[in-house]
C-alpha cells in the first residue's frame, strides 16, 4: 500500500511511567503488521512518519533529544503518550532525557509537545486514566494525560485508548478511522474512548453469556460456566474483546478461563474490587440480574 501523492503525518511517541506493554502489544498488530506501519501507508494516501520512538529509533542520548526538540517544530504532528505522568515533586519520578546538562521529565515533555499537536493519543490505561501507575496509594502522584490537560488548560483534541495493554487494533483502527472519516466524525464516549472499540460491554457479546442467563456459574477456576462469581468485570467493562479477541484471535482473557479484570475502565485497578472477587457494586445490572436468578 504505497501511494506517491500521500499525506505525511509525523508521529512523536513518548513514554511516561509505563511498562512498555503498550508497545509490545502494538508490535503484535497483524493487519497492518508493524513493518507495514513503519514502512508503508497505513491507509492509502496517508503515511505515518515515526520521528521519535524510544524503542525503535537508532539514535540515543543527545542526538535523540535533538530529534525530539526539532520534531516539536514540525507541522501537524500526532503525539502518542503511553504511561502515566507523575506530578509529585515536579515530576522527578520520570526523567526521560537530558540535553546539555538539563534534565527533562515526561511532565515537561507533555506540556511542551501537546499544545501544538494535531491530536494526542493517550495509549493504554496509565496514560488514559492513571491505571496501574496511579494505583492506590499512588506514591508518585501519577496522573493521566487528560488530567494534565485539565490542569494546564491544554485544548488539543485527545483520544483515550485504554487497556492494560490496549489491543493493537484499538490504536491503529482509531488512527485509520481518523484518517478516513476525519477527527470530528470519530465518535467518542464520555471518557474519550472511540465508540467503535469501546461502545459495548464485554458482557453483551460474551460467549459465556448463555451460562450467565441460565445462572450457570463457575465456582472455581477451571470450571465450566460464567466467571461472574469468580470476579469477572465483563458486565461493567466497555471493550470489544469478546468479539475481537486477542493476538489474532488465538485467545482472550475470558476464553482462557480467567475473569476479565476491567482494564479499559477509568476505575481500574482499585475501584472494581479484588480481581478474583465478585464485583462490589451491587447496583450494576449484572448483579440485579443475578439476584433475580437466585430468587427463582
Amino acid at each position, binding site marked *: 500500500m504505497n501511494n506517491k501523492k500521500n499525506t505525511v503525518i509525523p508521529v512523536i511517541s513518548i513514554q511516561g511511567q509505563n511498562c512498555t506493554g503498550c508497545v509490545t502489544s502494538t508490535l503484535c498488530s497483524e493487519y497492518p503488521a508493524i513493518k507495514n506501519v513503519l514502512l508503508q501507508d497505513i491507509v492509502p494516501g496517508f503515511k505515518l512518519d515515526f520521528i521519535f520512538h524510544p524503542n525503535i529509533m537508532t539514535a540515543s542520548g543527545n542526538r535523540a533529544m535533538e530529534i525530539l526538540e526539532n520534531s516539536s517544530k514540525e507541522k501537524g504532528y500526532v503525539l502518542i503518550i503511553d504511561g502515566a505522568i507523575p506530578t509529585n515533586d515536579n515530576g522527578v519520578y520520570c526523567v526521560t532525557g537530558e540535553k546539555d546538562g538539563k534534565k527533562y521529565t515526561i511532565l515537561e515533555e507533555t506540556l511542551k509537545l501537546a499544545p501544538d499537536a494535531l491530536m494526542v493519543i493517550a495509549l493504554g490505561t496509565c496514560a488514559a486514566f492513571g491505571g496501574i501507575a496511579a494505583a492506590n496509594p499512588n506514591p508518585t502522584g501519577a496522573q493521566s494525560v487528560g488530567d494534565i490537560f485539565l490542569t494546564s488548560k491544554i485544548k488539543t483534541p485527545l483520544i483515550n485508548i485504554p487497556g492494560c495493554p490496549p489491543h493493537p487494533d484499538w490504536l491503529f483502527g482509531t488512527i485509520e478511522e481518523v484518517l478516513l472519516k476525519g477527527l470530528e466524525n470519530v465518535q467518542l464516549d464520555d471518557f474519550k474512548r472511540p465508540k467503535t472499540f469501546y461502545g459495548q460491554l464485554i458482557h453483551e457479546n460474551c460467549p459465556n453469556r448463555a451460562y450467565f442467563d441460565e445462572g450457570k456459574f463457575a465456582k472455581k477456576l477451571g470450571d465450566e460456566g460464567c466467571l461472574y462469581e469468580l470476579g469477572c468485570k465483563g458486565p461493567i467493562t466497555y471493550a470489544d474483546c469478546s468479539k475481537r479477541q486477542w493476538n489474532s484471535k488465538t485467545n482472550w*482473557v475470558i476464553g482462557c478461563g480467567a475473569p476479565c479484570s476491567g482494564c479499559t475502565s477509568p476505575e481500574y485497578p482499585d475501584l472494581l474490587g479484588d480481581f478474583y472477587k465478585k464485583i462490589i457494586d451491587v447496583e450494576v445490572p449484572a448483579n440485579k440480574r443475578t439476584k433475580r436468578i437466585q430468587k427463582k
Partner: protein
Amino acid sequence: MKKIVIHPITRIEGHLKVEAVVDNGEVKDASISGTMFRGIEIMLKGRDPRDAVMITQRICGVCPEPHAIASVSAVEEYAGLKDKIPVNGILLRNLILGTRSIADHILHFYILSGLDYIDPAQVMEYNGANQDLNTLKYFLQQGYSRPFLPRDEIDYRFDTKTTNMVVGHYIKAMDIYRKAQQAATLFGGKWPHDAAIVAGGVSQRLTADRITEFIWRLEEIADFVKNYYLPDVIAVAKTYNDYLEIGKGCRNLLAYDSYQTSSNGNYNDHLFKGGLVNNIDKYSKINIDNITEDLTHSWYQDSEPLYPGEGKTEPTADKKEAYSWVKSPRYDGMVYEVGPLASVLATYLVKKDPYIKNMVESSLSEIGTNISNMYSVAGRHLARVLSANIIVDKLSGWAQELKAEEPTVVEYDSPADGKGIGLCAAPRGALGHWLNVENGRISNYQVITPTSWNASPKDKDGQPGPYEQALIGIKVKESQSPVEILRVIRSFDPCTACAVHLVTPKKNLIGKYKVV
C-alpha cells in the same frame, strides 16, 4: 577527562541513563541511573495475595510472564499448594514462559540491538526479490528514513550483502515475534500480561486441538531460532570479534532453577540449573539468604521505612550521594551478573548434559573462541540465543506431555497468615518475589529483578554494578553517544521498569526469609 552523558538510552525497555568519564578514549568511570519510579510494592500492600500476579506483571510489559510465575509460586508456597499444582499446570507455565522468552530474545537481538550492527540504509544497493527488503528500499527511495535516521556515527562492518541479509531477518523478526506471542497466547490468554497464570495452576482448559495447534505453530519459530537467529549471532561475534573481549563485567554469575522438568515421573528437576559461577567456570550452589540490598547510591532513605501511612513517603530524590532509582542487590556482599549467560553457564557446568555441552561448545568453536569469552558483549548475545535454542528444543516435548481434558489448576484456599518465595529465570535472568501475608492480605511484597542486579549502582564499599564494571576500561570513539558504550549496555538487555519499583524498610530484609 571528559564526561559523556547518554540519556535516553533508546532501544531498551524503560528509562535509563549512563554517565561515563572518558580519558584519552578510555572509560575511567561509569554511573548507571534508572530514572523512572512507580512504587509497585507500595501499591501491593493490603491487596489479596492472588491479585499480585496481575499487578506484578505490570512491572514489565516486555517480560511479564516470569513475574506471573514468580508471583503465583510465592502465593502457592504461602497457601500450601506448592506440591499440588497439576502436571498440566507446570507444563503450561513452562510453555508460556519458554515461548515468550524466545520471542523476547528475538526482539532483543534484532529490534533492540540490531541497529548497532547492521545499517538498513545499505538496502539501497539491494537488487533481489525479498519483498520486505524491497519495501524498505522503496521507503528510503521516497525520501523517508525515520526513525532509523538521523543517528550518531556507527562503525558498521558487515559487507552490503550480509547486511541486507540480516536486515531482512530484522524485518522478519517482527513477524516471528508476533507469531511466537500468538502461540503462547493459546495457553496464556493474551499478550502481554497473561490472564491464565493463576494461583493454583493455569486456568486455560486443555483440548487436543489446542495442544496440536500450539505444536504446529512451533515449527516456524524453531526454524527462525536455529536457521536465522543463531547464525546471525555467530556472524556478529565473528565480524565484531573485538566484542568477545569488550564488556567483561564482574565475572560473577547468579541464576535460579527454572522450568520444572520430569525425572522418573516427578517434576523435581529443572531445565536450567540455578547456582553461582565464579572465576569463569567454578560452580557452586546458591543460598538466597545471602542476598542483601544496598541503598548507598539509590534515591531512598536507607534507615527508615518508606511506606506511606507509616511515616513519610520519602523516596529521597535529593539524596546527595545517590544517582539511581535502582538499588544494589549483592550476594555475600559481592557484585553478581544475572541473565541467560548465568543460566546457560551454570547449567553447562553442573548438569553435564551432552546435548547442552555440545551446543555451547560447537557454537564457541565456530566463532573460534572459548568459554572465557562468554563474559563479553558478544558472549551475552550468544548465551541468549543458546538459551532460546535449548528452550525451543523442549517445547514440543512438553506440549506432548500435556493431558487434554485433565485438570490444569487446583482450588485456591488460603490461610490467614504466611509467607512464600517465588523464583524463576526471566528472559533477563534471576527473578525473585518475596511475599508476606497477614490476615489474608499482603503485608509486604519484595521483588528483586534481573535488571536490579545488572543495572545496580555502586554499593557502600564502592563496588560498581555489573553494567558499570563492564563499561570501565573500554575504549570509545569520542562522540555524543559512543556506540561502544551502547553495545555494552544493550548486551545485558536492560529492563528498567523491572529494576525500579521497590522500596524496602530495611537493607537486609530479604535475608529474614528462609527458603523452605
